[in-house]
């Protein structure tokens, strides 16, 4: 069998947010694009997200949030990743995130934010081209 590197992605829902239909749709799309997707379920603390990402050896974390707490939770996750020396993991976000907040989030190291209505193919392509295998 040839060496087969697979893109592994953690799809995570940080914070108190019970809506994961979007996260599931994205997870399914990544799966259909040939990636291994680990979904951890709802209500994750930043610590849980980072621990799961490290244990699972993922190349990418997709954060989904619709609660409005992104400005608190996303930077915290980036901080914890940095503390673990895991800067190589590509982090992207999605959900209900106002335009005005995007620049600030990107400054913390989030690579891209995908708002409602983003074609799934766009997310797939973005991850495929930006992930470090």
């Amino acid at each position, binding site marked *: *069998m*040839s*060496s*087969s*590197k*697979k893109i*592994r992605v953690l799809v995570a829902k940080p914070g108190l947010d019970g809506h994961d239909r979007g996260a599931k749709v994205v*997870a*399914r799309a*990544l*799966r*259909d*694009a*040939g*990636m*291994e*997707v*680990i*979904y*951890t*379920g709802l209500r*994750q603390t930043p*610590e*849980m997200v980072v*621990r*799961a990402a*490290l*244990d*699972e*050896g993922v190349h990418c974390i997709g954060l989904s949030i619709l609660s409005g707490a992104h400005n608190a939770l996303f930077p915290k996750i980036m901080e914890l990743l940095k503390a*673990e*020396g895991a*800067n*190589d993991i590509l982090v992207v976000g999605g959900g209900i995130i106002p335009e005005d907040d995007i620049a600030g989030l990107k400054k913390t190291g989030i690579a891209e934010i995908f708002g409602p209505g983003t074609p799934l193919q766009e997310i797939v392509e973005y991850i495929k081209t930006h992930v*470090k*295998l």
Partner: protein
Amino acid sequence: MSEEPVVSVNELVDGVLSGKRRYLARLISLIENEDNQAQEALVQLYRHTGRAYIIGVTGPPGSGKSSLVTKLTAEFRKRAKTIGIICVDPSSPFTGGALLGDRIRMQEHSLDDDVYVRSMGTRGHLGGLSRATSDAIRAIDASGKDIIFVETVGTGQSEVEVIEIAHTVIVIDVPGSGDDIQAIKAGIMEIADIFVVNKSDYPGADKKVTEINTMLDIDPRERPWRPPVLLTNSRTGDGVAELADKLLEHFKYLKDSGMLEQKGLERSREELQNLMKYKLTQELSNKLQGKPAYEKAIRMIAERKKDPYTVAEQLIAEFLFSESR
């Protein structure tokens, strides 16, 4: 991995042996990707393995494997055991992608430093596990975990590979899953060291226990260990402490009866044979792949001018001859 700090094999080995989870995670990734570094590390780690108690958990999809492993983990943590968990989910035969969702049930241990959870896709391997599973177990074993749970994909009737890697196999069934004929079919029902009827609060749980016991009553194999049939509820935790006791009892039985040693020998024989087979196949295909004579032979077989039986024997004879010179 371009910008990731390059880790040497020695660093990797030291990291795993001192129980650092990042190194463990990295080694398992290398194993899954069939990277050469993985084998170099495993060569060094091998003598540090063989200490963990490996428990296989199998059963149909939705029977509660992940939830039960979570509850068992909680029970063994109370008894000061450290835990590794490997959960295998199916990879798509079409895209190779996978949705690995077993971690969802395991949130209560997600920040426990003495619990390591890893999800794996089958990546085309049949039998309920992935090709990398046994080496991943070895890596976790070397990192010092006392107990390693291996949760197979949701199984049907014949994915029985888990018996080759686990000391004890738990087969989970649930009430209402077919009649007593299902219980006497060959395959998965034959591999249990312990049966668990999960979702004990559902109607028909006692009937299921009776069906399995009846099946065991007529089992012609002379077995000093008759698999017990336990009722559990992985939502409430009912029956889980008893199951943990039974597991330890089975491990003790294996040790005291000499079965553990015997299984170890069988396993090493099996593993060596498989590895040789694998390496030989690879060598052979490296040698033949793309060679004009090989392609021509394939064409002639397809056109019925030659038969595959004779060609295979000829090629292998040539290969062995050329190697022995």
